[in-house]
């Protein structure tokens, strides 16, 4: 029987591609085979629309836009690049499901629909969790950067050339704290808010530079523009 703490910094390796070649696109990919550029994605609000909390439990489907975007990104920046989903999931902390159920739902929602995804990293903790085993002020919950450091370690990622796409300022804070330079926040039809009064975690830099996109497709357009 697994202890619940085994899920601390939980890693679900869902798909590992066979790479048959090495491709260098512009300056984005570092000129080292060992270190790979990575597309970090938030799940709620990016892969599927966000409507409150607990979408994963209710069953979600990845939008066609997100699928097109991921495959276009891989085609543009090479199959050497990785796609990693980094998400906070609090349903288990609110006692709405067990961690095992959430893992299974995440696996089902993402892996079976988006074969380009290399791994999902999820934080199940919350500082005010109803479930005492998940109640902690962890370093993996965004806006902290713990999961990014784990992914970097596990997959030998080249962080400065990597790209983060999220729908909240906490996504940007977490990625910037880990050293990701290409940050994209998707605004689409909803207006996101910067929580200007809250204190920011220690590792967050005092300024964060990001790019605002309306639709995911603009990320590829902008990255091509940056490289040119």
């Amino acid at each position: 029987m697994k202890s619940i703490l085994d899920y601390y910094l939980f890693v679900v390796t869902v798909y590992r591609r066979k790479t048959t070649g090495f491709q260098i696109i512009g300056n984005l990919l570092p000129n080292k085979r060992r270190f790979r550029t990575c597309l970090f994605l938030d799940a709620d609000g990016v892969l599927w629309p966000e409507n409150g909390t607990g979408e994963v439990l209710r069953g979600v489907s990845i939008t066609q836009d997100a699928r097109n975007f991921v495959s276009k990104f891989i085609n543009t920046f090479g199959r050497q690049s990785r796609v990693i989903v980094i998400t906070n999931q609090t349903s288990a902390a609110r006692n709405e499901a067990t961690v095992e159920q959430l893992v299974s739902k995440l696996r089902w929602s993402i892996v079976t629909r988006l074969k380009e995804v290399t791994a999902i990293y999820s934080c199940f903790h919350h500082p005010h969790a109803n479930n005492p085993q998940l109640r902690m002020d962890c370093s993996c919950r965004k806006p902290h950067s713990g999961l990014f450091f784990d992914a970097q370690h596990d997959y030998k990622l080249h962080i400065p050339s990597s790209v983060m796409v999220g729908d909240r300022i906490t996504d940007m804070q977490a990625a910037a704290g880990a050293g990701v330079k290409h940050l994209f926040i998707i605004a689409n039809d909803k207006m996101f808010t910067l929580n200007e009064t809250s204190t920011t975690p220690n590792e967050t830099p005092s300024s964060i530079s990001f790019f605002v996109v309306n639709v995911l497709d603009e990320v590829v357009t902008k990255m091509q523009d940056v490289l040119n």
Partner: protein
Amino acid sequence: MNILILAAGLGTRLRPLTETTPKPLLRIGDESILHRLIRQCGSVFPDSTMFVNGSYLATQIVNSLVSIPVLQRPYFIWETRPLGTAITTVRLFDAEPADLLVLHGDLVVTAEGLEVFKNHLLSTNSSVLATHQRQSSFARSVVSHEGNQVVSIIENTARDNSADGETVRVNSGIYYFKSPHLSTTERPLPDENISPRLLNAVAAAGNLEIWDWVYQRVSVDSFESLESATLLAESSS
């Protein structure tokens, strides 16, 4: 080349207008001050990368950037706490080392002026400070110079009415830093501003020259200047 537009100010002199809207988003004619500046920079410096910084009411600035076409849209630098313009400039340079054009986010200028300024930048090896003539009683950032070379910038917030009528050369809010000059400058402390801190450091090394901005320009720092900015925007669009 990188372009940094400074838009993090509190806009205290334009209250109550700036209590709910950041100063760069105040409308002059059909568009806001910031959007006009971004549009002009995009057309005059098409190969540059643009950055806008923000802290006070930053959400509104970010959300307003969405209406700009993606290839002209600037990166946004969210300052989780106000840093001071000198640090913002140097940090951007450290992250993206390239020649850097810095503009105040409350500037209303003509595209013609920017075009001529750009042509001057191509012909010089110095960093450049744009200046214009102003009556000393209204001067807030006085540039003392020997010939074309800046000696120092003196910030003067108190008005000196004794020398009324005399004209002095003042900072226009447009700075161009050549890459080697910023890389050798001592790193500024928090809350220090470009003027006089960073400009004086570059000037002390003999690397800063003045350029006479003779074209129409308005720095929106009062209700009267907001009206003249609107007139300028309408007449030049």
